[in-house]
């Protein structure tokens, strides 16, 4: 709302400078976003400083979408009297235009006032045009300008019809007929629905009620008689219509927030006065006012004690009725209640935001001054709850992942459909947005990987080789709904370069170069995560169809060993991303450059994890361990996990650790076979093991490996 200060001065004295006025309005809830220069009006000299205040009016205060509304606040702030602008006298004469509110239109239009005026259509006087322009309204002609002037001054939208172009020279308020068309003032042909309200003549719709007039009855240079409308339309009906037509106007903006139902006749009288004042016309006959069920005034109780309860301060008792009366509320003292004063307050029609006590307390707080609220601290009435498990879990995972060299990314929850598509099995599994911002943000991510992959690409394009990122976030699929996950993406060198690598990496590696990350890097990260959660991991080769975004033969389903029997639900997966997916997202092709990913479901992780509150330490082992190696050759397709399981099954409890430490193909190993070596650690809890008993165990393990896997001991 742009308010010209000289216009404001006509309604209330302004005894402070422009800056102080702007500051006072801002402090009372009407933020002055800008102070602009006032327009020059030829022939008028400004005696006092003038400016245009650009005010932000919150949606609850439609009454302040007017000079009068702002003047009323200024009056309340500074205690100066409000002067209502001049009105034409009320007349008992009958109206020259019949108005009918059809039954079906009455809920959308509880009040409709109309009158007729003879007009001479010409440009408005310069001062009026300048004021409209200062407020951001384009001057059109004196008649239309008067209606807009009244809207800006009093806040009440009006409309003028060319009376001679209304069939039957009458006005009818009725619902639109389904499919009924009207050409609005902006020249658009609009098709209406039967839940929209129109102002029609004897035959056709001539205006969309409360939104915009029709072009067919527009006031033009040839107009000599107008029917003036000053009505009150239901906010919800106007808002719905305005939204459906995608048509927002100064009128609809005010009606949908709530105009003053007491204002239509006053606004009409103001319009009559202005028409006469500027010589643009003269009213013919009186004002018809269709208002079958006048608003019953409501009374809202206000307790001094409640003001204290909410605000936490003592507001002087007398301040309360004073400020409310200045704002136009009716205030009657009520009986003292519990030792405190009370009032019965009647809000005026323009205060559509006030219907209960808290609304009045807000008025008191606003005018008493937020700056006068001291700072206090709320007492703790109950011990706070401990931090929730999900939050703790994410903090733990974050600690482990950052310690593991991965940095945290936060990527968008909605992504391109093409980026999401490879990560779902079926099209209907994608959660699409009805009104996406753009194609780039069209579907909710079914996985964290596509966002992370884009982040890898972003970093790669900026020349960054080693990228290790993780994200904790929500995923969305039709099948599983909203779920929480952690995902890791790694690419490039597995460690920072170091001058010592030229010595440490000898054969097959160029001096100073670090080998690229591979599957076992991402597997190690996953193992670390699971270890932190108290889960013993179990990896099994993934069947290609289920994880179609991972390279065949290079992906694993991750389970908890405790529930790791085949068929147990998985925690997630780890593997190499199909190169085609990375290439499609623009990853620069580099030789041997692969992207490895892992993604785990946080809820599954929480279910499988150990309850940290129940953790207890066991004493460190008191007896020495005996370490033995076993080296075998087996079929090269045999998973190492199977060998490890066989070893475990064949050994007594004293086998405390089995670790694969070598895998070898080539010279000395038969074609189709692979050499595997495991380091076995034995330890007994109650005594020192003897070489002889471990030797017997090793023989049993050897036998088991030969019979189960046709292994050759090496």
């Amino acid at each position, binding site marked *: 709302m742009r308010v010209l200060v000289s216009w404001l001065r006509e309604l209330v004295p302004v005894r402070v400078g422009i800056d102080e006025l702007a500051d006072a309005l801002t*402090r*009372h*809830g009407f933020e002055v976003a800008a102070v602009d220069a006032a327009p020059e009006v030829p022939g008028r000299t400004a005696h006092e400083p003038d400016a245009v205040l650009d005010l932000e009016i*919150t*949606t*609850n205060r439609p009454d302040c979408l007017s000079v009068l509304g702002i003047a009323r606040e200024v009056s309340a702030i500074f205690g100066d009297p409000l002067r209502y602008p001049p009105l034409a006298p009320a007349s008992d004469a009958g109206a020259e235009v019949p108005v009918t509110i059809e039954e079906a239109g009455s809920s959308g239009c509880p009040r409709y006032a109309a009158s007729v005026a003879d007009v001479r259509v010409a440009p408005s006087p310069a001062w009026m045009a300048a004021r409209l322009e200062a407020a951001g309204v384009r001057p059109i002609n004196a008649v239309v300008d008067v209606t807009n002037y009244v809207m800006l001054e009093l806040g009440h939208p009006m409309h003028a019809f060319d009376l001679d172009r209304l069939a039957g020279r009458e006005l009818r308020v009725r619902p639109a007929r389904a499919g009924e068309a009207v050409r609005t003032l902006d020249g658009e042909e609009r098709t209406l629905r039967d839940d929209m309200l129109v102002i029609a003549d004897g035959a056709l719709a001539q205006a969309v009620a409360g939104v915009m007039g029709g072009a067919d009855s527009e006031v033009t240079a040839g107009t000599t008689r107008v029917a003036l409308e000053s009505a009150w339309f239901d906010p919800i009906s106007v*808002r719905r219509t305005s939204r459906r037509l995608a048509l927002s106007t100064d009128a609809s903006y005010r009606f*949908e927030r709530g105009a003053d139902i007491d204002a239509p006749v006053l606004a009409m009288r103001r319009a009559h006065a202005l028409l006469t004042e500027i010589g643009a016309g003269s009213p013919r006959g009186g004002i018809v006012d269709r208002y079958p069920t006048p608003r019953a005034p409501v009374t809202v109780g206000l307790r001094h004690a409640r003001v204290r309860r*909410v605000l*936490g*301060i003592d507001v002087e008792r007398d301040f309360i009725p004073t400020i409310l009366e200045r704002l136009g509320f009716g205030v009657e003292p009520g009986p003292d209640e519990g030792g405190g004063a009370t009032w019965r307050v009647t809000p005026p029609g323009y205060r559509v935001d006030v219907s209960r006590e*808290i609304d009045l*307390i*807000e008025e008191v*707080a*606003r005018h008493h001054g*937020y700056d006068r*609220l*001291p*700072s*206090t*601290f*709320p007492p703790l009435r109950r011990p*706070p709850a401990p931090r*929730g498990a999900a*939050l703790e879990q994410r903090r733990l995972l*974050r600690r482990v992942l*950052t310690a*593991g060299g991965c*940095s*945290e990314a*936060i*990527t*968008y*929850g*909605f992504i391109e459909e093409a980026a999401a598509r490879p990560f779902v099995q079926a099209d209907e599994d994608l*959660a*699409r*947005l*009805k*009104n*996406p*911002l753009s194609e780039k*943000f069209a579907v*909710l991510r079914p996985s964290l990987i596509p966002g992370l992959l884009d*982040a890898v690409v*972003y970093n790669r394009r*900026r020349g960054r080789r080693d*990228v290790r*990122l993780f994200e904790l*976030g*929500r995923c*969305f699929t039709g099948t599983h*709904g*909203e*779920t929480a996950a952690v995902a890791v993406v790694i690419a490039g060198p597995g*460690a*920072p370069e*170091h*001058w010592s690598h030229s010595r440490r990496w000898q054969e097959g590696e160029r001096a100073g170069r670090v080998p690229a990350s591979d599957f076992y890097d991402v597997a190690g990260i996953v193992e670390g995560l699971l270890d932190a959660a108290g889960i013993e991991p179990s990896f099994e080769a993934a069947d290609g169809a289920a994880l179609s975004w991972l390279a065949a033969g290079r992906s694993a389903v991750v389970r908890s060993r405790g529930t790791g029997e085949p068929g147990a639900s998985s925690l997630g997966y780890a593997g190499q991303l199909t190169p085609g997916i990375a290439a499609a997202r623009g990853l620069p092709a580099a030789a041997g450059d692969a992207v490895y990913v892992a993604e785990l479901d946080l809820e599954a992780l929480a279910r499988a994890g150990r309850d940290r509150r129940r953790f207890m330490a066991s004493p460190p082992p008191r007896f020495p361990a005996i370490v033995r190696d076993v080296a075998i050759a087996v079929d090269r397709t045999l998973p190492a996990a199977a060998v490890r399981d066989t070893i475990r099954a064949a050994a007594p409890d004293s086998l405390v650790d089995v670790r694969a430490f070598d895998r070898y193909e080539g010279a000395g190993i038969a074609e189709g076979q692979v050499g595997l070596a495991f380091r076995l650690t034995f330890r007994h809890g109650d005594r020192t093991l003897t070489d002889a008993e471990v030797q017997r165990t090793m023989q049993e393990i050897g036998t088991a490996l030969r019979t189960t896997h046709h292994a050759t001991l090496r």
Partner: protein
Amino acid sequence: MAPPAAVEGVRAAFAAELRDAASSDDLQELRNRYLGRKRGAVTALLKSIASASPDVRRDLGREANALKREIEEALAARRRGLEATPARKAGRPDAGADRDPAAASTRAGTDARDLGALDVTLPGREVKLGHRHPLTVVREEIEEIFTSLGFEVVEGPEVEDDYHNFEALNMPQEHPARDMQDTLYLEAPLSTPAGRPGTLLRTHTSGVQIRYMETHEPPVRIIAPGLVYRRDTPDLTHSPMFQQVEGLLVGDDVTMTDLKGTLECFLQRLFTPDTQVMFRPSFFPYTEPSAEVFMSCVFCRGDGCAVCKRTGWLEVLGSGMVHPAVLEAVGYDSERLTGWAFGVGIDRLAILKYRVQDIRAFYDNDLQLLEQFLL
């Protein structure tokens, strides 16, 4: 064969204490504690020989007796040293300790053998650490501050239903305030962990507060951090997804001055202790009275600069007293209870805290930015 661990432990402990002994009284005290008949540590070792298993008995005996002799000699040597330099100040016994064979043998740096020189200026092997995202850094800091003020951290679904995002917050259908937050809707409802299927992406985390109140009796003292979504075209200060934290306090005696005090404490801890806080009237459908919260500009410290548009103040938060209609929607007694709530964009706070120019930089995940943040 290495001496048994028990002996080695006593030897090391004695050597350390001997270094700190500065007077003859100290030396007497040491003698009592190591060689004393009743409570001496070496005496206890010698007594334990009898009960030791046969395979360690011999070693233990030999080593414990050797230690006893060492201690006798070391104490005698130190006593001679003290007598020779009577003026030495207590607490600086280094010179004496250097002449002491028992103490010297436990200290590094006295071995003069040449092990070969290194270029100690070459970089060490980097322990590569990852970094938390700056928005996480700020979010966790906020969580810590409010946890320390007795608030519980509560979370909820990002896909929300109309009731919890709008209606229960005093924003019925067709409410003009719904325009304030342009909402993204789903084509088809989606199931969420919260139960009721979601039809939209939450525009704020207020739904979390509603759910909490629906399932908990007052008093309520929570914060609800999380991602929120709005149909805003990305630019320097807008992102269609950002992080928010909302706070809610409901009880028998909750006032607006408490709101001011709590937010002041929060902003002073997150920024600097001299941060000033200012309230200005505003409007939100779910609070009344409502306040926009400003803090003194972090760039110019309130003097006025381009960032604060010469006002000295930055708008950072929305807040207010919980509207009685919201309390009533969750079945709370709006006469007995009052409450306050606030909401703040974590991205905005991070921008101010770290002077990041462009909100979109948070979602590029450029390692060159992420790695700048302290762990």
